[in-house]
């Protein structure tokens, strides 16, 4: 049990009066550790909402610096942050929103050599990355380390997300098997992204993390939520864990390896 200060009780009062959260749920949130991989379009809203919600410890990973072209959607960064490392820019905003939150920054990109050690220390992971080699690497690491996580992908006016509880629900590779070849699939930098769509998908991921931590509702297990902001149609596609899955199936993976780097860069 932890004693919330009067300041915290007031700050979290709208959570605490929520019947499915309450003081017990807020304690779970305060005692939780969430890792946000990528401080970009998805990572920005996730990090802001998790900090505001009072997640006890938030790790944030990104090796990049803020670019002017990020500001159309990466709402945690401001014009004054251009050229600043994204993790430092993000940490400053998160602490400004909620000084009760401990923010740990990892100013690097994740690869097979470091991802397992970082992921292991967290209760839940958010995939906010922008390339398939990272998305599959995160899936592998979370399955191996047995850490639940939220997959998120966005493109143009669309988004997709699913929540994965390793060995219990279908993983990303159950659905998509392996990364597509380099340049086979358009990226946000080559095909564009409506800024607000990043916010729509990121806030869904943040809600999934909080639901998991509190233990309320039905996470997006065994289903892919997809939406198209042009029609504003949302769909759930249901599936089952694939017993022959390359990653989480019978044999499964035993170790982490890097996928061929699929560089996500602007081709103008």
């Amino acid at each position, binding site marked *: 049990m932890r004693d919330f200060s009067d300041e915290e009780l007031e700050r979290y009062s709208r959570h605490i009066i929520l019947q499915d959260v309450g003081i017990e749920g807020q304690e779970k949130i305060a005692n939780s550790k969430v890792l946000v991989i*990528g401080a*970009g*379009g*998805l*990572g920005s809203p996730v990090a802001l909402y998790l900090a505001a919600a009072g997640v006890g410890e938030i790790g944030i990973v990104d090796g990049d610096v803020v670019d002017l072209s*990020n500001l159309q959607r*990466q709402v945690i960064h401001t014009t004054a942050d251009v050229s600043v490392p994204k993790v430092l820019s993000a940490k400053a905003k998160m602490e400004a929103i909620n000084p009760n939150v401990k923010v740990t920054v990892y100013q690097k990109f994740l690869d097979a050599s470091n991802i397992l050690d970082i992921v292991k220390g967290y209760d839940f992971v958010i*995939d*906010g*990355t*922008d*390339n*398939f080699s990272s*998305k599959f690497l995160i899936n592998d690491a979370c399955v191996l380390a047995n850490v639940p996580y939220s997959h*998120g*992908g*966005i*493109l143009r006016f*669309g*988004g*997709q997300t699913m929540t994965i509880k390793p060995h219990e629900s279908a993983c990303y590779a*159950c*659905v*998509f*098997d392996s990364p*597509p070849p380099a340049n*086979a*699939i358009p*990226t*946000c930098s080559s095909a564009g*992204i409506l800024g607000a769509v*990043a916010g729509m998908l990121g806030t869904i991921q943040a809600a999934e993390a909080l639901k998991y931590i509190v233990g309320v509702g039905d996470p997006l297990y065994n289903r*892919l939520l*997809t939406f198209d902001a042009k029609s504003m149609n949302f*769909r759930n*596609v*249901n*599936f*089952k864990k*694939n017993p022959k899955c390359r990653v989480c199936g019978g044999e499964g993976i035993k170790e982490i390896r890097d996928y061929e780097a*699929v560089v*996500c860069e602007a081709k103008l």
Partner: protein
Amino acid sequence: MKLTINGDTKELKDGISLPELLIIENVEQPDMVSVQINDEFIRQDEHTNVVLKDGDEINFLYFMGGGA
């Protein structure tokens, strides 16, 4: 026959195969789409063996790699 494709029910001629359906539905990059029929994923190398039946529910799931 009636097929439900990504949630929409459509009337299509009998006996079409999965590769034919991918063309009819204008699926771009058919080798990049994850196909699910009646809750089962169809491996890429098995597409040509699949003939669709009345009432099949088909979902096309697309890669989305953006996030930053």
